[in-house]
């Protein structure tokens, strides 16, 4: 139990590792993540990789939507831009995969800046519609700029390699995913307690007031778009080299909505929430597939219902979380934690 956890300075209050207790459990988590690939089977490793990609993307989107309050329905388009940048650099220009990751991020960030420009004039609903339009326009470009993207046939991408060692299995790729996830989370966690992070939150709470207290809206709104798109671009580069192929069908509007769902279910404006959301929303379809397998063995022919049921549950999760727990899983986590900390008192 944690007692007497008082802070005397603001620096202390803003610390990431607030107590020995937190450090201990993070250490345990880290050890678990290191041991995990040696004990898990192929399927679990596949899920772990998927969760990793989801977490990076969700943390990035949360910086834009959760912290800065700029809703974006075009996250999948940025992931696509990152993916295509990496694929084209690797296959056409002979870049190594490792060098293509930052470039994928930068190109996506540049696209994010362009899409972010309307955010200076329009906000809320209108911005949401503008990013929706961007999503469709980029999808169109992926399909129709055939000389660059190969259209619907897509591009085959070789697996990443270091000095002849190829990251071509689930287990080997897991290490790449793990390192990038850790870097992404640490950067985001530090960003939100910096001057820039506070500016983001001020813009979210009331952009006009933020401008009056001297926050440069132009600079910070565009930074939020660029950083979030950079994250998306990195996810794109990782994801396509994991899949070894890229086609326009990988980046539909539904993917953007999935990422928004992750941060809503996880908790808007919380890095931890984005992580929870990424894990949760990746696990739900897998659990449903598992259930479909059980139903198949008991009632053959009935399992077809699970395909649309995924959509129904996905939609219902969004609605129910928004109505009953708008602050998401992160808030539930906090409540559970404080229940144990304060027990037997209620607060």
């Amino acid at each position, binding site marked *: 139990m944690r007692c007497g956890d008082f802070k005397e300075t603001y620096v202390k209050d803003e610390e990431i590792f607030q107590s020995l207790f937190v450090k201990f459990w993070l250490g345990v988590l880290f050890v678990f993540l290191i041991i995990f690939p040696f004990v898990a089977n192929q399927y679990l490793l596949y899920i772990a990789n998927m969760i990793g990609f989801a977490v990076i993307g969700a943390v990035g989107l949360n910086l834009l939507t959760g912290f800065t309050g700029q*809703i974006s329905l075009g996250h999948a388009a940025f992931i696509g831009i990152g993916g295509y940048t990496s694929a084209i650099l690797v296959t056409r220009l002979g870049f190594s995969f490792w060098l293509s990751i930052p470039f994928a991020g930068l190109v996506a960030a540049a696209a994010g800046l362009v899409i972010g420009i309307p955010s200076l004039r329009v906000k809320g609903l209108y911005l949401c519609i503008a990013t929706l339009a961007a999503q469709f326009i980029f999808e169109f470009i992926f399909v129709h700029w055939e000389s660059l993207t190969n259209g619907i046939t897509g591009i085959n991408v070789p697996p990443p390699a270091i000095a002849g060692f190829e990251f071509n299995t689930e287990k080997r790729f897991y290490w790449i995913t793990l390192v990038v996830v850790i870097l992404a989370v640490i950067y985001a966690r530090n960003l939100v307690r910096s001057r820039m992070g506070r500016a983001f939150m001020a813009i979210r709470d009331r952009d006009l007031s933020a401008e009056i207290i001297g926050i440069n809206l132009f600079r910070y709104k565009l930074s939020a778009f660029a950083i979030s798109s950079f994250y998306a671009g990195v996810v794109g580069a990782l994801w396509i080299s994991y899949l070894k192929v890229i086609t326009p069908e990988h980046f539909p509007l539904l993917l953007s909505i999935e990422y928004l769902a992750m941060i*809503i279910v996880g908790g808007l404006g919380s890095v931890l929430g984005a992580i929870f959301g990424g894990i949760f929303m990746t696990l739900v379809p897998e659990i449903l597939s598992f259930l479909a397998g059980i139903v198949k063995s008991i009632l053959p022919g009935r399992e077809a219902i699970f395909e649309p049921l995924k959509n129904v*549950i996905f939609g219902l999760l969004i609605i129910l979380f928004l109505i009953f727990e708008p602050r998401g899983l992160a808030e539930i986590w906090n409540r559970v934690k404080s229940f144990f900390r304060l027990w037997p008192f209620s607060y």
Partner: protein
Amino acid sequence: MDILIQVIVTGIATGGVYGLIALGFVLIYKATSVLNLAMGEFMTLGAFVCFTVLSQLDAPFYLAFALTLVCAFILGAVVERLVLKPLIGEPIISVIMVTIGLGITLRGIMYMIWTPTFRSFPQIFPPEPLQLGFAVIPSGLWWGLILAVAATVIFILIFKFSRIGVAMRATANDQQAALSMGISVRGIFAMSWCFGAAASMIGGIVIGNINGISVYMGDVGLQVLAVIILGGLDSIAGAIIGGLIVGILQNLTGLYIDPLVGGGAKNVAPYFILVLILMIRPYGLFGKRIIERV
């Protein structure tokens, strides 16, 4: 030259249908400030309900139409009560996302009931195309346009002259003043959802009749966003004129740009229009310019 006129006439007919669906968006937005992104799924549901009544019960079209309207009213009221009412006063992202979630849920449910197979609509209108001399309009589009225009006119008349319509306009104008005049604002919210759902479901019947129906026809609903942004989110006249402009521009794109890029430009054209409008005139042609105070 002939083909140009033909394309423009087709564009006007398509635009009329867009106008009707856009009216569905505007009716809801004006009273409740909610942009319903599930509109496409409402449309699809309308088409499916009408289709099922027509094909399973062998009912005449007017009966199927009436039943669809009843469904629309029930759906609108239920959605407003269960989903939107708890979110009054929440940030805009919650409201947008809840309508997206609603759309996905509805789509999944329709997928379960009707399966994703593509179906063509039973013959409900006389099949002869309309000969205008300088252009020909296919039967589905022509009768669809008549239906859409009739529905639009009726909605506008209700909005202008009926008691409910006046109450809806009052609520849109100033909620507090409306409340103090004894108008049940909550009732009006539900009512505008009913009307919005009805407008989109009629639109769904018309579009289903032209293109055939499947679970995925709701994507047109998002293209209509270009119409309402062009016209202004809260303007009924804007919805109609915007519908015509987008309909014509879309068909012209199909004629001139599609051959250049190898197809598909027709469906993405509304979004290009949308981005342009947002850059130049974000509140649309007729929309109310929002002035913010801190």
